[in-house]
């Protein structure tokens, strides 16, 4: 026995609170009444990722998508759709907007995501080259090798408007062009897979899910710039990605898609893996090259740029995984196709690792120009546990913290820069009101201090000083003068550091100072952390009106900081309190709170 249709009702937190449960009940009742109980199965699903429009109902196998469904709409859906097979237009997501979106970027109206980079992830078996080939894999290589000159390839990438996804967004085609214009001879193509941002794993997933796309892209790049050798510099912490890349390289070799005389075209290209060894700074181009050469990953001054003088002094193009994953698609579908996706200045899509205090953490890919609100609330399903959105952080340790007033900023390189953050590699961390911005700035500084190569004084010493000031502030010893010093050091680090890591290390401090100065001042003046995160600033207080004088808290307190007589309101001696929170947990009357 099989059902003819299935009604999927979103069971995500947002949808449930919006009445999802009553909708389910209503369906069951109406289907019973219509005699369809055995023909239609009603299923509650996990979040379908469009919580703004919840409760959401999806009818399979047609895939019809109804939004903002209320219990009273159910009767109509059953009668019209399930009995007569007619779509209930008024419950479909805004048809006008849907049409527009479809026309612009071919996005099915109910889905915010659009997957170019991740096109094969979760679809093909990454260990089977045939799966990749079946999905237009190595088709771009065919086209490039047999129908295009290297100049035409570079031209196509330039025309597509693709920009480097690793950080600053330098046009990929320009990079290729510089390297192409260098005199002939040994050149190198390097894939930067040393994804090191804490909280970012886009590249790892891409390599694990679709390794051949990177091999194909590197070969195309090699052809375009005149390189016969490629290196993938990958984090040693990514064993699965390494394994799958090794399999992929072997398979491509066996089929002659890598190596000498690829497909009989006369073009030869080979790829070797080189492992990182746990140094974030090696994400910086010049440091990465040092590391491939077997040295300490200390950045070098630029110019000369790697495209002119890179690996072993030869012209070298370095692109990151996400950038490269776009290449075969651009070649197959054309620059014009790609160019239509995204914003005026930033084309294509962006993959984000959406994490933090969001319901649906995960890997997402959206067209450039999507707003933070859409990402966090529609795709991410909103904030966990009914908390309030406080800020989002992009760009990892080099990025900034974005306050709620910029939720509707469309994401592209320029607009993020304008609000004091950067696109970065794609970590997108969501914070709620229980997160303290000073603490977050501290977290990132701690990271950069640990990861600074130590070569250059502004970064090595400046970072440590920033961190110390932040520690001082979160410990309740901060002064207003500290803010001045934070600003002075940030400015000097940004201007006098040699590499990107040092130049951007102060961004988390700068952006939090800019948007959350009031919280800094609270820490400094009122010795208060509103998020309750900075443990040294927490004050436990007993509300005398609620305290029954049961003495439980006083007995539990390990520091003997609570005193009071039986049946009389107790009090906490703040000088003795060690902020362990035992009293608050113990109190049965809710008389103890912290802030």
């Amino acid at each position, binding site marked *: 026995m099989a*059902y003819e249709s299935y009604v999927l009702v979103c069971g995500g937190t947002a949808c449930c609170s919006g009445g999802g449960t009553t909708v389910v009940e209503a369906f069951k009742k109406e289907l019973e009444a219509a005699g369809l109980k055995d023909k239609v199965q009603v299923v509650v699903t996990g979040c379908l990722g469009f919580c703004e429009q919840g409760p959401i109902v*999806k009818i399979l196998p047609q895939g019809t998508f109804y939004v903002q469904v209320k219990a009273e709409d159910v009767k109509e859906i059953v009668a019209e759709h399930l009995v007569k097979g007619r779509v209930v237009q008024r419950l479909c997501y805004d048809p006008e907007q849907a049409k527009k979106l479809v026309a612009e970027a071919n*996005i099915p109206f109910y889905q915010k995501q659009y*997957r170019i980079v991740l*096109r094969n*992830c979760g679809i093909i078996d990454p260990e089977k080259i045939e*799966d990749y080939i079946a999905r237009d894999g190595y088709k771009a290589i065919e086209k490039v090798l047999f129908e295009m000159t290297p100049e035409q390839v570079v031209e196509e990438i330039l025309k597509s408007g693709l920009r480097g996804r690793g950080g600053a967004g330098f046009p990929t085609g320009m990079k290729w062009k510089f390297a192409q214009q260098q005199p002939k001879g040994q050149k190198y193509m390097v894939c930067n897979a040393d994804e090191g941002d804490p909280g970012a*794993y886009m590249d790892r*997933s891409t390599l694990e*899910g679709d390794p051949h796309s990177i091999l194909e892209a590197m070969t195309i790049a090699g052809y375009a710039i005149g390189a016969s050798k490629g290196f993938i510099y990958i984090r040693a912490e990514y064993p699965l990605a390494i394994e799958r890349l090794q399999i992929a390289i072997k398979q491509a070799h066996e089929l002659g898609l890598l190596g000498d005389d690829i497909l009989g075209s006369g073009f030869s290209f080979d790829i070797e893996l080189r492992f990182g060894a746990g140094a974030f700074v090696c994400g910086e181009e010049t440091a990465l090259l040092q590391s491939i050469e077997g040295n300490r990953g200390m950045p070098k001054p630029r110019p000369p740029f790697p495209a002119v003088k890179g690996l072993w002094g030869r012209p070298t193009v370095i692109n990151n995984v996400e950038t490269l994953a776009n290449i075969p698609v651009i070649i197959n579908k054309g620059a014009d196709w790609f160019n239509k996706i995204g914003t005026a200045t930033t084309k294509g899509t962006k993959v984000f690792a959406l994490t933090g205090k969001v319901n649906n953490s995960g890997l997402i890919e959206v067209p450039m120009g999507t707003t933070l609100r859409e990402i966090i609330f529609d795709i991410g399903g909103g904030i966990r546990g009914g908390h309030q959105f406080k800020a989002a952080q992009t760009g990892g340790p080099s990025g900034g913290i974005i306050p709620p007033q910029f939720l509707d900023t469309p994401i592209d390189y320029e607009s993020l820069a304008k609000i004091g953050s950067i696109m970065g590699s794609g970590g997108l961390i969501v914070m709620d009101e229980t997160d303290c911005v000073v603490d977050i700035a501290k977290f990132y500084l701690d990271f950069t201090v640990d990861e600074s190569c130590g070569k250059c004084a502004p970064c090595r010493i400046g970072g440590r000083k920033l961190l110390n000031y932040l520690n001082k502030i979160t410990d309740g010893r901060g002064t207003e003068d500290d803010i001045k010093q934070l600003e002075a050091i940030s400015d000097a680090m940004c201007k006098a550091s040699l590499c990107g890591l040092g130049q951007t290390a102060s961004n988390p401090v700068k952006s939090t100072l800019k948007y959350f100065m009031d919280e800094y001042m609270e820490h400094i003046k009122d010795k208060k952390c509103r998020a309750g995160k900075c443990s040294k600033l927490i004050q436990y207080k007993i509300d005398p009106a609620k305290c029954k004088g049961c003495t439980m808290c006083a007995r539990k307190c390990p520091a003997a900081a609570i005193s009071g007589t039986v049946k009389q309101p107790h009090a906490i001696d703040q000088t003795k309190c060690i902020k362990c929170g035992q009293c608050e947990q113990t109190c049965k009357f809710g008389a103890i709170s912290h802030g």
Partner: protein
Amino acid sequence: MAKLTLEDLRRLRGEKQKAMEMRDASNKDVQVIVGMGTCGIAAGAKDTFTALVNAISDKGLTNVLIRQTGCMGLCHSEPTVEVVVPGMPTVIYGNVDAATAKDVVEKHIVGHQLIDDKILDRPSIDIVKEA
């Protein structure tokens, strides 16, 4: 395998495409696809995989193909399993632990019923298939 010429590659692609479409359209085979990226494995995808294999052999099913794939991005609900059964909509289940894996075989593949609370949506359309 021998090295391919351009013609070989095109032929191979054609054959494989057909094979893949057959799997999708003609509904001859049941397919179970397990997300085996790092996050999936970290969340227990290997146990899920084993449980699926066991349940399928327990039921004596011979028409089921189990294969792996990479991360589809639904990290909050790993491990994820996609199930393709003829005559039923293709769905993705999330949070598929060993017990759910058994359900997938017994209820979905054998019983042709979707499993409550576990269904997720593929996050976007497929640009490769799109014209």
